[in-house]
């Protein structure tokens, strides 16, 4: 398990013992609306919720989440919290951007954090988009893979082809090529449909095929589908010695124990930190409308620390730094 861990199942939405009245000024209430999916999805919904829970104690917040089952319910689900006079509402996922902005306009006294939602001008004063550069995380991961591959073949297994997966893929490829021009990157997107991000078996099959064709790094970037690829890689012979896998979005060392045998790192968007930071800003009244750029990079190597050559470590760290300060471009154009 990860940090505080999401609500263990049934208990569901409420995660505070005492539920005070959110309309009173003393009680600081944070609500979260997931994108279609659940807070234990090992992906962005989980990351967002964990981010909230991480700072909950520090801020003395009362927290609650509602899981969306149908994208048409975004507005309705947000309204659950506005009706209950929550102070902050976190909405997860780019698909909720419109609904969040609309709610922001309607409820100017409530603060909104739009996770993964880019705020174009004109910004809504009480809505802050929390944005990450997937391509940067992908670039760093690709750079690591490119530096370490022995077969000069690496692969990436993606969910449906949408901007974030495209960004991960492009960053990964460019990063790898930057480290090692001889590397060839095979990438595969899941066919469109309801199951694109939730088909671990397909992901596993694709990873298996790439491995058989000589790839020694598999980057799984597509929710459950990508997780399947990681798990498959973890099962192949040579996992952790000759063959490695790279997780996505959050440090999957915490969320996907099954991938430990090969999980050298994850292309991480520091989502929890981003949420935590923004919540603190809101509490401290220093938040600004518009976009808040969270950082992206790679996760700690954990057990693989000794397997990554020191020079690679320094180079990767350097790349991450340059990406952060903007001196290095990933070459991804949305």
């Amino acid at each position, binding site marked *: 398990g990860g940090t505080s861990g999401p609500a263990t199942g049934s208990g569901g939405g409420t995660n505070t013992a005492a539920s005070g009245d959110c309309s009173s000024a003393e009680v600081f209430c944070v609500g979260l609306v997931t994108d279609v999916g659940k807070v234990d999805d090992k992906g962005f919904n989980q990351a967002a919720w964990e981010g909230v829970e991480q700072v909950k104690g520090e801020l003395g917040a009362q927290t*609650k989440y509602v899981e969306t089952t149908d*994208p*048409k319910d975004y507005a309705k689900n947000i309204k*659950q919290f506005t009706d209950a006079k929550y102070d902050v509402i976190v909405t997860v996922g780019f*698909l909720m951007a419109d609904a969040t902005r609309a709610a922001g306009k309607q409820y100017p006294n409530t603060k909104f954090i739009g996770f993964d939602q880019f705020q174009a001008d004109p910004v809504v004063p009480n809505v802050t988009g929390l944005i990450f550069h997937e391509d940067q995380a992908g670039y760093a991961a690709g750079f690591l893979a490119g530096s370490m591959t022995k077969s000069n073949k690496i692969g990436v297994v993606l969910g449906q*082809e949408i901007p974030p997966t495209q960004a991960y893929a492009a960053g990964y490829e460019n990063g790898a090529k930057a480290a090692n021009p001889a590397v060839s990157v095979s990438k595969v997107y899941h066919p*469109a*449909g309801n199951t694109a991000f939730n088909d671990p078996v397909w992901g596993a099959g694709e990873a298996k095929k790439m491995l058989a064709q000589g790839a020694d790094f598999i980057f799984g970037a597509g929710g459950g589908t990508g997780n399947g690829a990681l798990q498959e890689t973890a099962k192949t012979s040579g996992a952790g010695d000759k063959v490695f896998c790279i997780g996505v979005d959050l440090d999957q060392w915490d969320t996907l124990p099954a991938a430990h045998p090969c999980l050298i790192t994850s292309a991480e968007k520091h989502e929890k930190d981003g949420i935590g930071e923004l919540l603190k800003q809101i509490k401290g009244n220093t938040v600004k409308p518009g976009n808040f750029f969270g950082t992206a990079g790679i996760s700690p190597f954990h057990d693989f620390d000794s397997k990554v050559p020191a020079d690679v470590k320094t180079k990767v760290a350097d790349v991450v730094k340059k990406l952060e300060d903007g001196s290095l471009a990933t070459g991804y154009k949305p």
Partner: protein
Amino acid sequence: MADPRDEPSDGRPATGAVATETAPPPVVAERGAPPPPTGVLGLLVREQSIIVPIVAVIAALAIGAVLIRAQGVNPMYAYQSLFSYSFGTADGLRGTFEKMVPLILCGLAVVIPLRVGLFNIGAQGQLMSGAICAAAAAHAVREAPGFLIAIIAMVAGILGGAMWASIAGALKATRGVHEVISTIMLNSIAAGLIDYLVNGPLKDPTQSYPSSYPAPEAAQFQPLGFVPIGLPIALVLAILVAWMLRRTTLGFQFETIGRNRHAASYAGIKLGGMIVLAMAVAGGLAGLSGSIEYLEIDPYRYQDGIAGSLGFDGITIALLARSTPLGTIPAALLVGALRAGSSTLMFNTGIQPEIVDMLLAITLLLVSLPIIAKLIFRRHTAKSSALASSWGS
């Protein structure tokens, strides 16, 4: 080829009811059924197709209460917060109604082919085709008056869905391809093609996430109070379909094919054409629901998730409705209310939204298992016809 699904084709007579030359003709209405009771009981027995589902819903809620109690929540409170939201608030009511619209239409899209003996698993793909065609058409005529755009989008949606479904119909009629396979395949094909369209030709460049151009503002359906415009459309169509099946020659042809396709072809009904037509009508309804979703529901674009699992929900609705067109209305009301209320339920009690699926499954089980009817009506239980018998054709 002999077709033993029907009566044995050896040309021998089946056992018939007694009818002798001397005795007065005995009652042979229901073979061997006891005489129908009269009075209140008679009324109840005759209306059992209404009573059984009601009892089933109540029983399902009772079983669900056990599940909810197991989560440490007071079931009364849970149901109260669920239904008082779905029915008791303007937001909730509007949510319930909005969800009903595609449920009714997709339910009809399953009901009609069932009458012809076809099992349409493809409402999903048909809805998606309808929605994308509506989006494309609306964008093409975006300069036109809003009212006109809406009409054109709806017509395009109907055509798109109808076309998509007719592929399955035509493959069935001309090549004998089982509609279950073809509609499953067509669902996936629609998903892929549309994914291409919303990433390519139809992509709204101002959106980072692949989505179509939005419906022009003037064409967007604004609800009348808490009644979305789609609702009257869906209700009228459910009534129309019921009328069509019951009173028109077209309905008679559908029905005849479904009940005995050999007799239908003997009677001069063109099987192939009717199969394609039935699928087309079904697809048109699913397609229309797609265009209504596009015109009526925020974000007024074709985006992933516009179809949700509506096509498959249509199957549930059709079965809950016992494959009657009018039955889709209460079925959709129930499902819509449960779905609309599920987030309030979660907000108030922490019960996961999956509870709705469980309630539905139990309801469907109780409606369909003859148990309840047997318990209440004993030997007066009405026979329900089997849908599954169309499988093999």
